[in-house]
């Protein structure tokens, strides 16, 4: 039962991640492979603040999300003025560097050993220490992200996002501030990822850099592409399936030392075959391929 709850919590956290990244990939047409870095920034902020400084968990959550939103500007400002390809490269290098900092900045992050004994927080007198309570917390965050995402994408602002995705020249000629709009949606997406990271850190109570590598970013992108970018349910279904399938395979009896490789190999094959044979994903509405005419 505990194992079952654990899987459900993981699915809810990854659904939040996929949903928040889809604001960027599916709705704005910008690809970022730095989502796990923001997830990690949220997790590490919470972990460091609550273990080293004994700050309340809410402060950790708040600092993590604002820090992630601020750092997103470091990628967005220099690269979004250029062609979209540079944004991809910028996000990729940000991801690699953040992982390297998690690994090497030992005085702050404890390096590859990670941070352990992250306390369970107390929220309004209720002690968050059972699996059920974490499931409730992560589902609340998921529902909140879902509401935010719906509100944003169905607003006039969301219309501009979709317009940018289809053709960025038209909204620009109508005087929309493309850079500002893209930066805002990127900051929102990063902040939601950091919030998920904060819950993840408190739930797992032990974090190390291996949960926040470029592979995890690719996994989150794969969830979106597989489920269907720019749809309401696509990222949720993609996340659920891609978390569940390796867990099922675990019972088939692949030796543990090969399991990690086999899992990632499967993700890579899923991503490649989606792009080659079904770019709009399972529930696809928006065709990933069509959005930008080649120069």
């Amino acid at each position, binding site marked *: 039962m505990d194992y079952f709850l654990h899987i459900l919590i993981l699915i809810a956290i990854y659904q939040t991640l996929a949903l928040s990244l889809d604001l960027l990939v599916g709705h704005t047409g910008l690809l970022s492979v730095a989502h796990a870095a923001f997830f990690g920034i949220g997790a590490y902020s919470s972990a460091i603040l609550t273990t080293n400084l004994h700050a309340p968990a809410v402060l950790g959550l708040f600092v993590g999300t604002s820090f992630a939103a601020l750092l997103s500007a470091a990628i967005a400002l220099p690269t979004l003025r250029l062609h979209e*390809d540079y944004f991809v490269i910028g996000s990729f*290098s940000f991801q690699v560097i953040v992982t390297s900092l998690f690994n090497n900045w030992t005085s702050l992050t404890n390096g590859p050993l990670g941070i352990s004994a992250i306390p369970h927080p107390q929220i309004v007198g209720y002690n968050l220490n059972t699996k059920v309570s974490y499931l409730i917390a992560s589902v609340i965050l998921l529902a909140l992200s879902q509401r935010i995402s719906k509100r944003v994408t169905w607003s006039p602002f969301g219309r501009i996002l979709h317009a940018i995705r289809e053709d960025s020249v038209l909204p620009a000629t109508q005087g929309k501030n493309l850079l500002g709009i893209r930066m805002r949606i990127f900051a929102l997406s990063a902040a939601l990822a950091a919030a998920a990271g904060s819950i993840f850190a408190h739930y797992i109570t032990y974090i190390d850099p291996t949960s926040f590598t470029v592979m995890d970013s690719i996994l989150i992108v794969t969830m979106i592409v597989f489920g269907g970018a720019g749809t309401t349910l696509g990222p949720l279904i993609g996340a659920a399936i891609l978390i569940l399938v390796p867990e099922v395979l675990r019972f088939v009896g692949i030796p543990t030392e090969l399991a990690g490789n086999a899992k990632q*190999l499967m993700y890579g094959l899923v991503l*490649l075959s989606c792009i080659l044979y079904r770019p709009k994903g399972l529930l696809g509405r928006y065709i990933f391929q069509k959005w930008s005419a080649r120069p």
Partner: protein
Amino acid sequence: MIAQVIINGMLAGALIGLLALGFTLVVRTARIIHIAHAATFTTGGYVGLWLLRTWDVSLITAACGAMGAGAAVGFLIECCVYRSLRKQRASSVSVFLASLAVVVIIQNTIGLVFGNEIQIAPSRFGQEVLSICGARITTWQGLSILVSVSAFILTTIIMQFTKTGRLARAIGSDADLAQIAGVKLENVLMKVALFSALLGGLAGYMIAYDRSITPSNGLNLILLAITAAIVGGVGSVPGALIGGIIVGLTRQFAGWQLPSQWQDAIVFMLLLVILVIRPQGLFGKPIRRSTA
């Protein structure tokens, strides 16, 4: 001390440049963010070391094996992935994702076959230490600078003076026009992909022999190569070498002066700075800006 830092920076830079060269050639002709170059690199490194260890072949044979393995991977990528995406007129971003997926697949296949542990070269040929202006390098390192520089000269000659080179440059400047003029696009792009993969395999072998290799460090090294290519100007052959040396020197100086955790972060700073002040790089042509 400073001479040693500079020599080490140049050494690392020459190898990063060699990796950036293969990357920049594909970017220039096919207009793809060819991150799957990391896959040819890793395959070359692993096959080279495996030949040395298991079959006890000579260094030259192992180098040829590494280049052949790299080229085989490059052929598969071009044939099964890029060609089909070009047919669908896929956007550059989805080609990037496919390229990244290829890296994940190859890196984990290598992990399954050879294991995820760090690999080093078995027989340590070329560890004699030479002294140049007070700096110490091994013969292998001296040799790798020579190999890298000759690869650059060879590439420049091919790109400037052979028919294939001219066709590749024509495709790079305008693929549609080149096709109208009768250039067989797929043939030329295949040749470029194979040549780039040969260089990738060679770079993998040189770096793996000098230091070590793991299945996953291809992506870290390709980031250095991308930065080098952007600093030097995407598509410029000498720019890749100069950019590589700049990246190598920056990392060495950062490692010398700053706490070690900033050695990689400084590369990101370098990338951001160059994108802000001179996005076309040192030798690049001005690039098309987005509408933002």
